[in-house]
């Protein structure tokens, strides 16, 4: 197909995302592939403080990211607007950018591969019609509930409502046509507890697709319990012991782990698991799955960021490394097929590879049973410094932590200002118990209680 400037006048209305994406894809010239990712989002953010609305933002935004593969070179450009002249300029810019990069024979856009997208119902009209006054009321209710939760709650640093509704369309000159949309909303609060000179904090939240999914009490109780149980925390002696990760922390660990299972990192010599396919890399009770087709997962979606259907990928099965995640490019280079694992950070980023909905296969024990089995150790309720203390290339893992010592199989005294350290490789091998308490969290990973032995804790 040839393209001329006169096409600009035919650009569809800015409200029809699929039509805009299709129009851009149709502009591909000979020996050229064009992909357009068009997204539109609506969101509200409300923060209350001291019984008053501190800020209320509501906004709609839209943008486009265009990828051009010309011969065997790829360029990308984006813009925060769907105005026809801007879209045309963005395409021109992506084309221009392609001429400055190196040739790579493996480059190319996704093409339909016959895998049917999961039928997922992630859209909720009731969220879109939910009145602002009700959102404010819920945030105020949450703040009150946290304050009333315990006499030691000194302040509520912030109580927030947030919601978003995002629609996106992908079209390519290679035949991809994908459209999806999803809603989410949350309530969150961070509590500050104090007793004498001692101050501790804890956060709680509730997440769902529509207001009916949200639980104000549960979010408040969580924030209160987390903040108050750390009061009186001390710094323990340095030791090597078994740590029990609460579900939120396990989810964080899985997100880090996903970075090492990305096929592109493997190809480029940046993964500590390269060459280990088929080998035992973890405790036999560890089965790790990335399944964006599971509607319960927070970031579920029928399509990946290149418009291929998402699919269930088993990465580690009974401790044995089974698979890496691939997008179209990395799969072609590795001589395999895409696992439907292209991800991107909105319209402003070109697609990379990553996990969307990780989870460990739950074990059979309740969190209490895991603690009893562990006997002596440390229950970790929060970690900090994931970005500064975890090196996904070398595997070194060292993060700040807060939690409660475990003694005789039960929670004992709270501890703070400590680090927990090991390596990603050793932590996987040293898993000793997997909890049954699978919990879907606002993350690319679900959580559950996980016990890991021989972790260094630095304190006094």
């Amino acid at each position: 197909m040839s393209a001329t400037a006169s096409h600009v006048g035919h650009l569809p209305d800015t409200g029809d995302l699929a039509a805009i994406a299709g129009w851009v894809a149709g502009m591909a010239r000979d020996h050229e592939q064009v992909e357009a990712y068009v997204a539109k989002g609506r969101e509200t953010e409300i923060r209350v403080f001291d019984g008053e609305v501190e800020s209320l933002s509501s906004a709609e935004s839209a943008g486009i990211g265009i990828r051009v593969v010309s011969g065997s070179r790829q360029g990308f450009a984006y813009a925060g607007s769907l105005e026809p002249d801007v879209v045309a300029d963005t395409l021109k810019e992506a084309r221009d950018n392609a001429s400055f990069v190196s040739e790579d024979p493996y480059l190319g856009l996704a093409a339909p591969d016959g895998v049917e997208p999961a039928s997922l119902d992630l859209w909720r009209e009731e969220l879109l019609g939910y009145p602002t006054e009700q959102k404010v009321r819920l945030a105020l209710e949450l703040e009150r509930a946290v304050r009333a939760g315990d006499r030691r709650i000194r302040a509520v640093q912030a109580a927030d409502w947030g919601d978003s509704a995002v629609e996106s369309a992908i079209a390519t000159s290679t035949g991809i046509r994908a459209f999806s949309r999803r809603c989410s909303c949350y309530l969150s609060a961070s509590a500050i507890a104090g007793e004498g000179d001692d101050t501790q904090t804890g956060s709680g939240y509730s997440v769902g697709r529509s207001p009916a999914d949200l639980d104000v009490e549960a979010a408040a109780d969580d924030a209160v319990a987390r903040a108050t149980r750390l009061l009186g925390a001390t710094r323990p002696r340095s030791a090597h012991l078994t740590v029990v990760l609460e579900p939120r922390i396990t989810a964080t660990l899985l997100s880090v782990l996903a970075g090492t299972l990305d096929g592109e990192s493997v190809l480029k010599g940046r993964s500590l698991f390269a060459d280990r396919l088929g080998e035992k890399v973890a405790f036999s009770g560890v089965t790790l799955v990335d399944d964006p087709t599971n509607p319960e997962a927070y970031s579920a979606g029928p399509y990946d960021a290149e418009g291929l259907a998402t699919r269930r990928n088993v990465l580690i099965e009974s401790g044995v490394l089974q698979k890496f995640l691939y997008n179209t490019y990395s799969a072609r280079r590795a001589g395999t097929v895409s696992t439907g694992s292209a991800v991107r950070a909105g319209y402003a980023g070109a697609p990379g590879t990553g996990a969307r909905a990780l989870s460990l296969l739950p074990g059979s024990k309740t969190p209490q049973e895991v603690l009893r089995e562990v006997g002596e150790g440390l229950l970790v309720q929060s970690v900090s410094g994931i970005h500064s203390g975890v090196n996904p290339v070398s595997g070194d893992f060292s993060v700040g932590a807060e939690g409660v010592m475990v003694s005789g199989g039960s929670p004992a005294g709270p501890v703070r200002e400590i680090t927990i350290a090991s390596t990603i490789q050793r932590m996987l091998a040293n898993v000793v118990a997997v909890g049954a308490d699978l919990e879907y969290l606002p993350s690319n990973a679900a959580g559950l209680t996980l016990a890991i032995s021989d972790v260094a804790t630095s304190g006094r």
Partner: protein
Amino acid sequence: MVLIDQGVLDVVLRRALRSGGEMAEVFAEDRRSNGARFDDGRVEDMASGRERGAGIRVVSGDTTGFAHTADLTEKGLLAAAEAAAAAARRGGGSVNVVALSRVQAPSPAEVSVLPENVAKADKVALLSRADEAARRAGSQIRQVTAVYADNRRQILVANSEGVLATDDQVKTRFAVSCVASGDTGLQTGRESVGATVGFELFDTVSVEEMAAAAAARAIRKLAARPAPSGRLAVVIKQGSGGVLFHEACGHGLEADLVARDASVFKGKVGEAVASPLVTLVDDGTMGPEWGAIGVDDEGHPAQRNVLIQDGVLTDYMWDWMRARKEGRPASGNGRRESYQHLPMVRMTNTYVLAGAEDPEEIVRQTPYGVFVAQLGGGQVNTATGDFVFGMTEAYLIENGRLTEPLRDANLIGNGPEVLRNIDVVGNDFAMGSPGTCGKDGQGVPVGDGQPTLRVSALTVGGTAR
């Protein structure tokens, strides 16, 4: 460049206050960015982007209403003004819009070569030069990633108090990351440089030297042993540890967190909060550093603010909202990621002034501890003061000498305690690598710096038994 005509601004501000409120503000932004990435022996990607729009806020009593739009026409702006006004609580008497008058602020750095005037081919050429230099450093280097990025951010701020300010912020950045492979597995080394300047950055920065430094770091770490575990003396090399102050006290000195009762430094102005050797400054005028600005994102000219003088807390950092509540002037620290965000109190370039000690002597006087030559990021809980920061190049100090390299680990401490435990400060000084500071989901460019100094005891989060 005129993002919005003055006549339109006037109409929009009046509309925003029509149903009440004490202050209305229009923040318009036009940002262009361009970047290229070299990886795995090839120029892998070149990307460019354009974001343009305006955020409008209306403040009524203690409530702020906010709306943003990518439509900078009068119609689009009026719609956003109505939405922001509706979001702000009604009530409070409406005030008049004061005639707009231009805020005069010197530019922190003259830009001589605008990135948009540089051929993309010249930007790309830097990348392959870095790759070659890194691979020359040794056969252990298995992978090299080099990233070039520039952006130009033109902003306009107008508010009903009569402020009319513009700024043209140009920033250029270059980074090299290497992976080395050896018997002990894989190791990484990184080096990055960024400044509030254009392409002339490369008149003074050699991408080959940066690449060689990143590669040497990765290779040295192949021989690294696990970091110690426990409380140790920690010496931090000049220019590598500004992030310590950013986390240990910088965030805790942001007036919004203080007002929320979420800072351990609340109520401490006039008190000794650090070793008398510490004088801490936040300075948005410090060009061409990464956090430099002409005006902040509320139209207030950048300032040099002394936060801690000889260990005594002198002031917090302020934005318009918190300053208004306290009936005092703002300090040029009201910043936001983009027109889609509300401003809040943020740091700019935060640094500790040089002291008196010879830096080499500091190491010689340390019988046992850790010498940190490069730090990664960090994180703080301002309410408790507990913070972490990661070391990405470090050595063991034994008997006053650097001995073995150490593997990556986080350090953890409590802000007020660590500030008091600074027992020697060197007579050298350097600013560190460009940083992006995240707060409430918004990232803004910040700089930091310090002389070589020692913390008498900090918890090192290694694994050594």
